[in-house]
């Protein structure tokens, strides 16, 4: 067993709000190995973005993070300034909105080289060469002339490619992608996914891919973390999650994936009935119980974590639902 690249233990994110403390992330743990793709999946609002921002130490001021362990290649990222030194160099991040993630006032080239010059140094000409090379690598033609363009001159798909190229300038070992394809149309989405997989193979990059779309997860994940209301409800290899889902929430999500051949064209995709509980204040027992078809009285009490090997889930039920 080699040590994981990223290790997260009991990570919490609390936000001060007017009506009380919102516990957006409620003690989650997972590891990411070098070169693998870990997908974090869950409905909107379950704390996926807060998790990724906490890893990068980029949380908004109202949010505070805590953890019993958070290490990157053995370095303790809870110590002040450690994450700051790693980000943009050994771990990079791309975001959901390619239309707003680039600064409108500066050229693509300027934005691509500035962090490289800061972290790696060298001449500006060398950095520009590297930027052109990276643009070609993410499939952008006539790279040299693109470097002189401003973000508003590029389509959403191209901007997301630029974001990826920019993130990979310094050859990071970990890329966190927070819903990188959600704002793009389906064709572009497929291209970006393929691009990420190709780059991963070529560069040995570890990827944390965050999405609310389990259909995407089935196409790219090595391992999967399923989140619900700020907590991990199930974790396992892609095969375990898709072939033997154990948690009723995961099963419900999988029922929502359109299946080629099985789902009729135009058929109403199943959505999980009910609403997500408030994240203000503590939650006793299983947070899913109001929406769970299998809930029992004991579900209101603290729920055990079950499982074996790499597959774990938090439910009173011993076997797959």
């Amino acid at each position: 067993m080699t040590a994981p690249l990223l290790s997260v233990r009991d990570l919490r994110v609390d936000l001060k709000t007017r009506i009380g403390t919102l516990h957006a992330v409620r003690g989650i743990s997972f590891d990411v190995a070098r070169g693998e793709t870990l997908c974090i999946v869950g409905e909107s609002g379950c704390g996926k973005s807060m998790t990724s921002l906490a890893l990068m130490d980029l949380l908004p001021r109202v949010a505070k993070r805590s953890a019993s362990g958070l290490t990157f290649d053995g370095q303790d990222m809870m110590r002040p300034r450690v994450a700051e030194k790693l980000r943009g160099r050994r771990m990079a991040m791309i975001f959901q909105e390619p239309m707003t993630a680039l600064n409108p006032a500066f050229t693509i080239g300027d934005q691509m080289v500035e962090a490289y010059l800061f972290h790696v140094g060298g001449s500006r000409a060398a950095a520009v060469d590297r930027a052109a090379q990276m643009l070609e690598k993410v499939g952008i033609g006539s790279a040299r002339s693109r470097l002189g363009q401003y973000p508003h001159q590029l389509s959403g798909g191209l901007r997301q490619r630029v974001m990826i190229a920019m993130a990979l300038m310094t050859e990071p070992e970990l890329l966190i992608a927070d819903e990188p394809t959600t704002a793009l149309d389906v064709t572009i989405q497929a291209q970006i996914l393929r691009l990420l997989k190709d780059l991963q193979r070529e560069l040995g990059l570890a990827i944390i891919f965050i999405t609310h779309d389990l259909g995407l997860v089935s196409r790219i994940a090595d391992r999967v973390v399923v989140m619900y209301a700020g907590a991990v409800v199930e974790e396992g290899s892609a095969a375990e999650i898709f072939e033997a889902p154990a948690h009723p929430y995961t099963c419900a999500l999988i029922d929502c994936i359109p299946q080629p051949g099985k789902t009729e064209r135009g058929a109403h995709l199943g959505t999980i009935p009910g609403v997500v509980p408030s994240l203000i204040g503590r939650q006793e027992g299983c947070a899913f119980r109001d929406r769970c078809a299998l809930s029992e009285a004991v579900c209101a009490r603290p729920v055990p974590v079950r499982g074996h090997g790499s597959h774990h889930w938090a439910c009173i039920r011993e076997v797959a639902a």
Partner: protein
Amino acid sequence: MLIYILKRLGLALIVALTVSVIAFALLRASGDIATALAGEGATPESIAVIRQTYGLDRPIPVQYLSWLWDVARGDFGQSYFFRTDVAGLIFGKIGNTLILGAASLAIALALSIPLGVLAAIYSGSIIDRAVTMFSLMGQALPSFFLALALIMVFAINLRMFPASGADSWRNFVLPALTLGYYITPPFMRLVRAGMIDALNTDYVRTARAKGLPARRVVFKHALRNALVPVVGLVAVQLGLLMGGSVVVESIFALDGLGYLAYQSISYRDFPVLQGVVLLLSLAYVVLTLLSDIINAWLDPRLRAA
């Protein structure tokens, strides 16, 4: 970029012509010009002669065109009160006002940009509140009060700067401080609001995610975008600056355009007032044009518009 500038230029020309019509109408509406030019106790005959000499008996549109032609060649007519060329009168004083305006603007920007950035970074904290207080005071305090306080301290007690006149750069220090502080609050508020917005944008998050030092994130990525509306405000605030310069120039007996405007109003010297209004309006148009061009340079998205 060239098309953008040409479009703005066309717009500026239209505005300038509109302004000229208004300035022309101002003088015509002020009463009979021939009577005023002839002075008190003039005979009807001499008034008629003046009317003919100056072409005041021609149809109004013809008068407007010939007046416009005169103005274009720098002839603004005769002052009723000073009995001299309006043009010569104005150009003799414009330098002092330009120096005062530029110095005040520089002071206002030098105060409001760092303070606004500081207030935005620490928004909601005691630093933010102190900066906001300081800027609110600039607005609440009448400028004559600040002027008198500055005169008390720096002119009378410390004898560092003179209280009146326009002989050396030292004469401009106290008026520029007064006027600069007076126009600081709107700039400060705009910089603060712009910076708070900019610091919350996705692109600033991207810049932080790239691991850039905080200084670079604030001063390159956020400030550049927060300054776009400030450039526009400079042109708009020019009105406030001009209004303020009337008061400040009068208090410090600084012989400039504002003081001249004040005098021309109290002497009902309409040709001078017309000249000053026309010139200030044109200056305003030119500055707006300049700020549009600077904005286009700061924000590449505007260039396409």
